[in-house]
């Protein structure tokens, strides 16, 4: 064993020496033999010139460019290389005040130890013309140089909130993405720019130059062999129709609210307006306008369409009706009376005047409150369930299967899920057994604890249009080099059978097309030949006048578009939301409007004075 062991230990020692020799030979090779890795003159060193990639372009669904890039310049200064210069001349060339330059230089001087040989960005995003002037005189200012930088350019004014903005990364952002960014880099912060940052940004490159002992840049290192070219970002194709988006923005101008249109078959978002929004002209240089935007009392950065939890109002009756049909507590032949509302004890939940009793189809057409109180009552007092707790939670599950009370899972990073009550909530509020149907009666007409985003009710319209399923709404289309998550291709079924959906569509058709004077609620939305099916809603708003709500889709038999319009403090659903949605549909399907008067009224309508600003 000992001799055998000694033998083996010798083998291992030889192995150790061989490994060390391999390393040393390779070291000898790269340090002494090969001069590929060497820089000849003793004091030379390399200078890295960062090449920024061009950011990907954003297209609309028809190939129209909605975001592209334009060239600007940054002025860089390497304080170590600066020699005394004519401050005034530099200031006039660069179009800044001499004090600005003096302050900057003083600041660099103070931090000179920290800065070392690094270059600092002194001025950002100057115009090409200014840069040209500077370039001519650059020899007067050693240590200063310009660097090309591309910034965002918006050829059409479509969807500021949707697109999001790009701005310089701050320390917090750099730390949140370790190894990906350095100070001076830009990144998408909201909207598509943020959601698709990884695709859009591309990869930085660099050119390596050699600096001689007098700190002058002499030549390309190794003729550029070790350089890295920047890789441009991927282009993104969105599902947005730029023309429709622009039209929608015009319809919503001077109103607060949202307008969302979805292609039902694909879940692709055709337009998504949040009003008031951020104008694209501010996006390119957001830091300049940031204070102005933040101070705006109507919070333009707040994307109402995917974030605001609004009471849905009567459009929610569709959901309750569908659940009733599925649970068997409602059928097409049941009729319920309504005498200006639903009476219970000394209270009543009021309704407008219409004939009585009604069946489901006409109850949808006329949006009868009383009828839908019975619908929810029967759902919640279903003998099938042991208690109202259980039946309410069942109801909650149904509603959730429509995409309410949770995030839909769209590709908006900021999407929120709204609110939806459970028995737990009511037990907490009223005590166990301390509440019954009449306590929570307001949820039968979409008030109370139900909060939905405009995107969610647009998705409801799409679900009804598809007779029972939806695809998760999304805004980015798959294109070359850009993939989208597979769930966007999958049909999402609700817990209600598809056969039951067919039963409510007729009511929605009649709500729009039954002819004026017959009690239908949305005659104003009718467009001959388009077969728009819709449902109005008028939701109470504790902060002033009621909100006007309308969801619809068209055409009835082969739906191409589903729309939700939500206008804050605008009154009845039929007054503002219905015409806005109807005009949008007509524009999309016909390309132009047949109702210029209505269009004019809507576009010129200014409801801002009714809206209380947030403080």
């Amino acid at each position: 064993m000992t001799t055998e062991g000694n033998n083996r230990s010798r083998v291992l020692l030889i192995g150790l020496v061989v490994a060390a020799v391999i390393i040393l030979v390779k070291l000898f090779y790269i340090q002494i033999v090969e001069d590929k890795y060497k820089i000849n003159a003793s004091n030379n060193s390399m200078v890295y010139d960062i090449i920024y990639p061009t950011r990907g372009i954003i297209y609309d669904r028809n190939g129209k460019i909605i975001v592209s890039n334009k060239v600007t310049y940054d002025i860089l200064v390497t304080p170590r290389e600066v020699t005394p210069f004519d401050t005034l001349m530099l200031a006039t060339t660069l179009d800044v005040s001499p004090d600005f330059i003096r302050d900057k230089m003083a600041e660099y001087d103070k931090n000179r130890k920290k800065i070392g040989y690094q270059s600092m960005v002194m001025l950002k995003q100057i115009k090409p013309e200014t840069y040209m002037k500077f370039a001519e005189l650059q020899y007067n200012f050693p240590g200063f140089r310009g660097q090309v930088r591309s910034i965002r350019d918006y050829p059409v004014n479509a969807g500021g909130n949707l697109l999001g903005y790009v701005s310089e990364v701050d320390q917090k952002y750099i730390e949140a993405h370790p190894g990906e960014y350095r100070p001076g880099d830009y990144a998408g912060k909201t909207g598509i720019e943020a959601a698709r940052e990884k695709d859009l940004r591309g990869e930085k490159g660099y050119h390596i130059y050699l600096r001689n002992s007098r700190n002058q840049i002499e030549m390309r290192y190794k003729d550029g062999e070790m350089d890295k070219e920047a890789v441009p970002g991927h282009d993104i194709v969105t599902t947005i129709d730029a023309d429709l988006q622009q039209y929608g923005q015009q319809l919503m101008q001077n109103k607060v609210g949202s307008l969302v249109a979805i292609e039902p078959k694909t879940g692709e978002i055709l337009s998504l307006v949040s009003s008031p929004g951020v104008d694209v002209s501010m996006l390119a240089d957001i830091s300049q306008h940031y204070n102005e935007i933040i101070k705006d009392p109507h919070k333009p950065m707040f994307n109402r369409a995917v974030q605001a939890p609004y009471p849905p109002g009567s459009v929610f009756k569709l959901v309750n009706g569908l659940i009733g049909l599925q649970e068997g507590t409602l059928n097409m032949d049941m009729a319920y009376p309504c005498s200006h509302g639903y009476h219970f004890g000394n209270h009543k939940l009021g309704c407008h005047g219409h004939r009585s009793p009604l069946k489901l189809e006409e109850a949808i057409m006329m949006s009868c409150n009383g009828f839908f109180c019975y619908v929810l009552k029967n759902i919640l007092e279903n003998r099938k369930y042991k208690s109202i707790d259980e039946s309410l939670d069942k109801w909650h599950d149904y509603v959730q299967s429509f995409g309410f009370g949770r995030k839909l899972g769209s590709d908006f990073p900021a999407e929120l899920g709204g609110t939806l009550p459970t028995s737990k909530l009511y037990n907490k509020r009223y005590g166990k057994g301390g509440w019954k149907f009449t306590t929570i009666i307001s949820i039968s007409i979409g008030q109370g604890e139900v909060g939905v985003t405009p995107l969610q009710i647009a998705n409801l319209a799409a679900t009804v249009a598809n007779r029972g399923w939806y695809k998760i709404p999304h805004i980015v289309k798959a294109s070359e080099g850009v993939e989208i998550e597979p769930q966007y291709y999958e049909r999402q079924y609700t817990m209600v059978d598809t056969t039951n959906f067919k039963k409510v569509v007729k009511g929605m058709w009649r709500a729009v097309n039954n002819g004026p004077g017959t009690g239908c609620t949305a005659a104003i939305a009718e467009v001959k030949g388009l077969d728009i099916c819709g449902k109005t809603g008028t939701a109470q708003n504790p902060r002033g006048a009621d909100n006007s709500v309308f969801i619809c889709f068209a055409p009835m038999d082969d739906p191409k578009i589903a729309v939700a319009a939500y206008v804050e403090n605008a009154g009845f659903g039929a007054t503002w939301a219905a015409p806005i949605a109807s005009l949008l549909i007509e524009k999309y399907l016909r390309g132009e409007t047949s109702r210029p008067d209505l269009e004019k009224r809507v576009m010129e309508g200014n409801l801002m004075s009714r809206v209380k600003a947030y403080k």
Partner: protein
Amino acid sequence: MGNFSDRGVKGSIDWRLVIYYLLLVIIGWINIYASIHSENPTSIFDFNFRCGKQFVWILTSLGLATLILFAINSQFWRSASLPMYLFVLGLLVLVIFVSKDVKGSHSWFEFGPVKFQPAEISKITTSLLLASVMSQTNFKITRLKDFLLTAIIIGIPMLVILAESETGSALVYAGFIFVMYREGFSGWWLFGIGMAVLLFILTLTASPYISLLVLVGVIMAVGVVCSGKTGAVFWINLGVLALLCLMPWILEKTVKPDSFLDKVKPMYILIGLCVCAIPYFFVKGYRDRKRYISISTLGLIAGIALVFSTDFIFNNILQDHQRKRIEVLLGMKEDPSGVGYNVNQSMIAIGSGGLTGKGFLNGTQTTFGFVPEQSTDFIFCTVGEEWGFIGCFVVILLYVLLIWRIIVDAEKSREAFTRIYGYCVAACIFMHLFINVGMTIGLMPVIGIPLPLLSYGGSSLWAFTVLIFIFIALYRQEKKYY
């Protein structure tokens, strides 16, 4: 080496090991200072910077070393090896669930400002348990039961560390095979593993055909070595092999495209021959009672299987970033900007050092932040750039001396426990050294593990200090028996 210190003066410490250790630690500290050095002259003791922190780590490490040498009974290590092993294994598993994601790996415990990696300590506990198990008197590595036990002790922490996505640290455990070899494990296994790596690389870089030819050639050579004679069969086989080597070239020259012969690929012929030969050699091996023939045949089958599964392993089992690193290393893809960036930068830094280096604090590549992880995994770049080939030579030499001395001491030990533990220590240091330095000079793929004693970092320095000083303490105990 028969000097007086070996002759058992009571409880003397092997001061040479301590000196190598101290030299390496100090070189590390100086280079960490240089690697973060900029125009801003900071003190090497400034606690705000890594060099100052490293100073604290060094002091605490020396404290640990003193504790191990003078306060802890060295018998403790043996008796506590199993509970310590299990405890650290528990930490290794726990860290997967509680740690933050650091560049894809889940291996760090964080307590406020203090971070540590259980994978570092696991090397120590695994070594101790290995030594304790393998030093039992009835232990024989050639017995299947004992071999499996060893494989499990090494394999479990290795797999858990792989699950933490710390491929580098896991690879270090492969070094324990050298310990197994020393303790009687067949050298053919080492040879086999080496061949497997060679075939894998050849299949990727050249072609499966060439790699199969090499396999057949090597197995024939083995046959000659084992039988000690070259019979007629051998010469015939050699002729066939030579013909097969020329086959692609001949076929290309003589056969017209689209003719029948064009469909005959050299590969098919080779495989056909192998398929015929395998049963023949099996029967022959059995009949002649020659084990080497049977085993070579098995080796041939395993080799063929490996060659044909290489693509699958490479494309389906390896993770994306690992595949890229291997592709770059083998020169299959030029990628000086992406994965190749680190290697390129580190080779520029080292290469620019030349013979004598640019001098202390005069490095430009390392201090301006072109080299990533310059004070941790790529600390060797600073050595290479500022001290040149001479500096690198000295550092490598110190490591070789350290490992050499540990092995020599281990061989001198009377107790198997000390000897085996010593080999474990040597294997760990060697693996770290070869992988880390190999990575910075483009010999190995980019695998992030620290350079022992030199790299910045408390948990690594502590771990290697404890690893080495336990051996020094054990060896010192040994001498008391003389």
